[in-house]
């Protein structure tokens, strides 16, 4: 669905993208993670046809982004809504711009209002709503026309738990219906919740790509024992079960608690970043 090959984008002396390559299939959710400045937002802007790359290729369904306007739904990182306009009026605008008319538009609005828990807010002006509510509206305006490619740039940043869950549920539903999704986030547990494949960006490039299991293979987890005198023993290991048995055999005092922690996405990111830097 989305093919991005060797994108380069510079802002004066700053190189935002430096050979960024990524492909996303229909129905796939790709969690794009990376520090601020890794190039995630520039990538989203180029695929959205808002920016032009200096070099490299982008195709959506085999066509350049300019030829598939309207098949992409974008929720930008920052809230971008009209504060004096109601939620319903926003959805009408973006629905109509997406090609929806009359009954189809009404149905799409009603469906999204339920899914994103906006039903009670429909006739309120967005400027008077909370940050979390605005996040849900922003997501709704990006999804109202059922885009085939969804670019969601930190769609839950600063959002409450209810908002986060509502957005994640809709994203999973739309991916289940065949939409390709690029989901950038700093909240790594969201990637697990979405069952997304992962792309790790750093310094304008994708430095790792794969499923969670593929990427964490070989990374150390942690075994932690707490003794009855509250002393803690913590060991980083790639073989947690064997290490746990060994520690239990060698413990000189009774053990009051055992904690086994598999490698997390945070561990993965730090490991990749360290490897890439070296």
């Amino acid at each position, binding site marked *: 669905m989305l093919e991005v090959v060797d994108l380069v984008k510079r*802002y*004066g002396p700053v190189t935002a993208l430096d050979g960024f390559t990524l492909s996303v299939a229909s129905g796939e959710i790709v969690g794009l993670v990376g520090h601020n400045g890794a190039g995630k937002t*520039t990538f989203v*802007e180029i695929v*959205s*046809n*808002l*920016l032009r790359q200096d070099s490299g290729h982008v195709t959506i369904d085999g066509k350049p982004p300019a030829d598939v*306007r*309207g098949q*992409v739904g*974008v929720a*930008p990182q*920052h*809230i*971008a*809504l*009209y*504060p*004096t*306009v109601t939620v319903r*009026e926003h959805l*009408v*605008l*973006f629905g*109509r*711009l*997406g*090609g929806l*008319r009359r009954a189809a538009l009404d149905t799409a609005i009603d469906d999204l209002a339920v899914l994103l828990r906006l039903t009670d807010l429909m006739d309120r*002006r967005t400027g008077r709503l909370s940050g979390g509510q605005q996040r849900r509206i922003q997501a709704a*305006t990006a999804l109202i026309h059922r885009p085939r490619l969804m670019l969601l740039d930190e769609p839950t940043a600063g959002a409450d738990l209810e908002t986060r869950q509502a957005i994640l549920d809709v994203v999973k539903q739309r991916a289940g219906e065949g939409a390709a999704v690029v989901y950038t986030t700093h909240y790594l547990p969201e990637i697990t919740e979405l069952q997304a494949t992962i792309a790790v960006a750093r310094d304008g490039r994708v430095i790792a790509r794969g499923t969670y299991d593929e990427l964490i293979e070989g990374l150390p987890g942690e075994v932690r024992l707490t003794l009855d005198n509250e002393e803690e023993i913590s060991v980083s290991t790639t073989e947690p079960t064997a290490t746990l048995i060994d520690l239990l055999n060698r413990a000189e005092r009774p053990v009051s608690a055992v904690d086994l922690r598999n490698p997390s996405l945070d561990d993965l990111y730090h490991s990749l970043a360290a490897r890439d830097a070296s």
Partner: protein
Amino acid sequence: MFYRIAAIARHNWIVRLRDPGQIISYIAMPMVLMLVLKPLYVRALDAGSTQVATGLMVMFSVFAIGLAGNSILSERTWRTWDRLRVSRAPAIELLVGKTFPIFLVMVLQQTILVIYGVIAIGLPLPAEPWWVALAILIWAFALLAIGAALATLVRSHGELSVISDVGALTLSSLGGALVPLSIMPEWAQIAGHASPGYWALTMLQAAVAGNESAMLLPASVLLAIGLVAGAFAARRLARGWSRGKLM
């Protein structure tokens, strides 16, 4: 195409209606000033009523540049312009849909002030109202284009406010909106020709007098200004305000 333009125009009309303070003040203020200044102008000039009505109408319609500028600049403040650019609507549809409601507001403002001028100030009833209507449309187009171009150049609402307010006063005064150009100093008479306000005033006074041949030159100048400013604004707005662009 028309469906999308209508959707954007309707949306922007709603946005305009929810924040009407600026346009109300640009209609009410010249009405009050026309009434207060009329005796002075009638005593000082042969065509005092025409001067005070058309002059203040031109001056306050130039202030409405800020209206166009603010409307476009708000899209940047709210970060909404790029969201529209991602949609199916190409840049030209966005621009037409965005600016049409502002154009209507400007035409409405000028029409109200002309009617008020006729009823309350003694502006001669135009022999051919259609020429006045045409003059209003041309002037509103030029103002809209200048305001849109300005909005792509300034960095904040404050900057826009300073430029449009000071610019409106300077250009309309130099153009003869407050004092007829014929009794201004020689340097001002020469400089006045550089002001769109001068051409607007000349065109409107010719239209009120039913002298359509005298409208031709000022109308052409204003259309040219509008086209150049409009093309500049369209080019800048089509590129949006993404990082690395415009600013």
